[in-house]
């Protein structure tokens, strides 16, 4: 893609940018203005950029994806099947706009949840230290674009020592073709709190659109956050996401990322173990086929001592699909007693399926325990034979093993109905494989 095309695309996008005077808070409008400036200076990355060498997103600029001008009036009946039954609080966004009629907010547990423009007047002091502070937009064009268009979004504040027993569902539905939405989520878990959040991206119809999401998560001292991110966008869509979690002292962050949809998807997930004794588990599953591309870049940064990180990333690649995994683990000079392990496992179901996996371990401390490894392979003939010797057909054996490969991640989802739903999705995927 030429620079001219890139700049033309970005200018086109910014034309739809407008000041919403009603919700302007000085610090927020200043942030937006800075982001607009950064958009003017940055370019859409190409395969010449190291961070994008396997993922060609030049086709993104072929269509001038604008933000939605009109929003369809969805009825609860239209989207009810996407509801997670255990969720007491559900925030729904349609084409990037908050749909209050479809949303349910339950404050019984003591949480503060809602959309940014509603909560900003009362909670500016809690929001300002975090919004735009975890995902930096200075050198990231997509985060800058999201921030430039930041007028609304999700805010969840879990006050000190509050445990929310039921999960919170954030549902982002795309219904229109050739539209860009910029979903934004801010999750603030105050000291000693505990919360489970499901961020769920859904296609209203099988058309081409762009989702450009940013999620920021602050996990304070001794807090515990389960974050499940589910990308089931249209198979023609582009999905770009930047997510950062910052972990304070003795906090715990459990992350599960599942990519099923999109023509091209890219997730940048950063976990900063910014204080002593922080723990994280980062699990990923990409389940793709045909000509899909799913790219996951993770960065787990051990900044302080006694941190623990566990990462398992799996890709199941069918058809002529292409999975990319780049997992960097950094152990900073004073992050002694770090305990880290990373595994990338990849299953290729056809001869055309492709995976690029790159585990990266950078250790600058001397008293650490770190392990990492990657495997790329096909189904094991001995496993297939075992199942066939029990009466299963070749196809049933292959399906079961493929399912099992994915189920290892799905099983870790702490929300039962979602787990069941995804197990079903994996089952349907395996039954439609081209192999």
């Amino acid at each position, binding site marked *: 893609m030429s620079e001219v095309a890139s700049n033309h695309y970005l200018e086109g996008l910014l034309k739809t940018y407008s000041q919403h005077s009603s919700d302007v808070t000085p610090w927020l409008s200043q942030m937006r203005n800075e982001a607009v400036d950064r958009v003017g200076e940055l370019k859409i990355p190409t395969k010449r950029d190291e961070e994008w060498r396997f993922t060609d997103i030049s086709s993104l600029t072929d269509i001038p994806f604008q933000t939605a001008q009109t929003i369809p009036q969805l009825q609860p009946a239209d989207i009810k099947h996407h509801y997670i039954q255990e969720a007491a609080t559900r925030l729904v966004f349609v084409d990037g706009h908050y749909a209050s009629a479809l949303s349910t907010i339950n404050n019984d547990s003591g949480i503060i949840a809602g959309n940014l423009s509603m909560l900003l007047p009362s909670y500016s002091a809690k929001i300002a230290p975090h919004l735009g502070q975890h995902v930096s937009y200075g050198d990231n064009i997509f985060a800058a674009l999201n921030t430039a268009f930041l007028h609304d979004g999700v805010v969840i504040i879990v006050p000190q020592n509050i445990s929310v027993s039921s999960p919170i569902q954030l549902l982002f539905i795309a219904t229109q073709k050739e539209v860009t939405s910029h979903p934004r989520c801010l999750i603030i878990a105050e000291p000693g709190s505990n919360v489970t959040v499901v961020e769920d991206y859904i296609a209203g119809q099988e058309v081409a659109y762009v989702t450009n999401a940013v999620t920021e998560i602050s996990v304070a001292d001794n807090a515990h956050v389960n974050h499940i991110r589910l990308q089931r966008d249209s198979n023609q869509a582009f999905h770009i996401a930047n997510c950062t979690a910052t972990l304070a002292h003795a906090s715990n962050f459990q992350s599960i990322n599942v990519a099923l949809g999109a023509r091209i998807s890219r997730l940048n997930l950063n976990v900063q173990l910014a204080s002593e004794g922080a723990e994280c588990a980062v699990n990923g599953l990409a389940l793709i086929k045909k000509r899909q591309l799913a790219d996951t870049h993770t960065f787990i940064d051990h900044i302080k001592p006694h941190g623990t990180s566990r990462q398992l990333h799996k890709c199941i690649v069918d058809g002529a699909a292409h999975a990319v995994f780049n997992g960097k683990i950094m152990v900073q000079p004073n992050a002694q007693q770090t305990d880290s392990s990373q595994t990338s496992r990849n299953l290729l179901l056809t001869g055309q399926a492709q995976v690029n996996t790159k585990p990266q371990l950078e250790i600058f401390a001397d008293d650490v325990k770190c392990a990492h490894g990657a495997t790329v392979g096909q189904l*094991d*003939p*001995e*496993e297939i*034979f*075992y*199942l*066939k*010797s*029990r*009466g*299963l*057909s*070749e196809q*049933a*054996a292959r399906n*079961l*093993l493929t*399912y*099992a*490969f*994915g*189920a*290892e991640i799905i*099983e870790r989802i702490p929300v039962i109905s979602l787990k069941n739903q995804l197990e079903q999705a994996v089952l349907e995927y395996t039954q439609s494989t081209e192999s």
Partner: protein
Amino acid sequence: MITNNSKPLLEVQGLHASVNGVAILKGIDLTINYGEIHAIMGINGSGKSTLAKILAGHSAYQVTAGNVIFDGKDLLALAPEERARSGVFLAFQYPIEIPGVANNQFLRLAYNTVQTQRGKDELDPLEFDDYVREKMKLLEMNPDFLDRSVNEGFSGGEKKRNEILQMALLEPRLNILDETDSGLDIDALRIVANGVNQLTNKDNATILVTHYQRLLNYIVPDYVHVMNSGRIIKTGGKELALELETRGYDWIGAEENIPEGAAL
């Protein structure tokens, strides 16, 4: 158990097989009647496990000559899953671990696949749960094994019990136990052997592939065959196993006067 009126369940005739062009079986003849238990013994590399895998249909081995007739049908013409459905069962020496698939899910799938083939009704998860728990008592297995992934993190003994549990569920006609005694402590061996003894009857037959005589104290064979270099070089009754235990394997080759490196 040898009965006078029993008919052949398995007839192996002049079976030759190779893997990657290397001959492993060099002419096996073996007839097994309904109701019988046959032990196949031999040193490592004698071909006894290969025979077990070939009977189950492992694709790594090429049959280069000979026939295998199972209940009047050409067994070698059947795919592994067809053999399983028509009643051949191999208890693996090294059962495969399948993380991500719950044992009960796997057992029910296998059970229902085989039942359907036999024209019987499938069991739903609740019905199957009752059924499998009953069978597990036979092997003194903790019901927790149903919820764990197939063989994942099982000890050697637990894996072998899980194999015999599958045998109990699938009710095969030909049970092939490949080194089922390996890696078992004495208690586990007793439990597994008990389970097998309760499953053998006049309507099935059993092949015990084993290295040691120990298993045969618990499961008493009608015949003992000794394999060497891809052939059965001696056949006898259960007392042959005891003789092997005291004298080792070397004397047989000398007695039978098999020339070193004899080719066929």
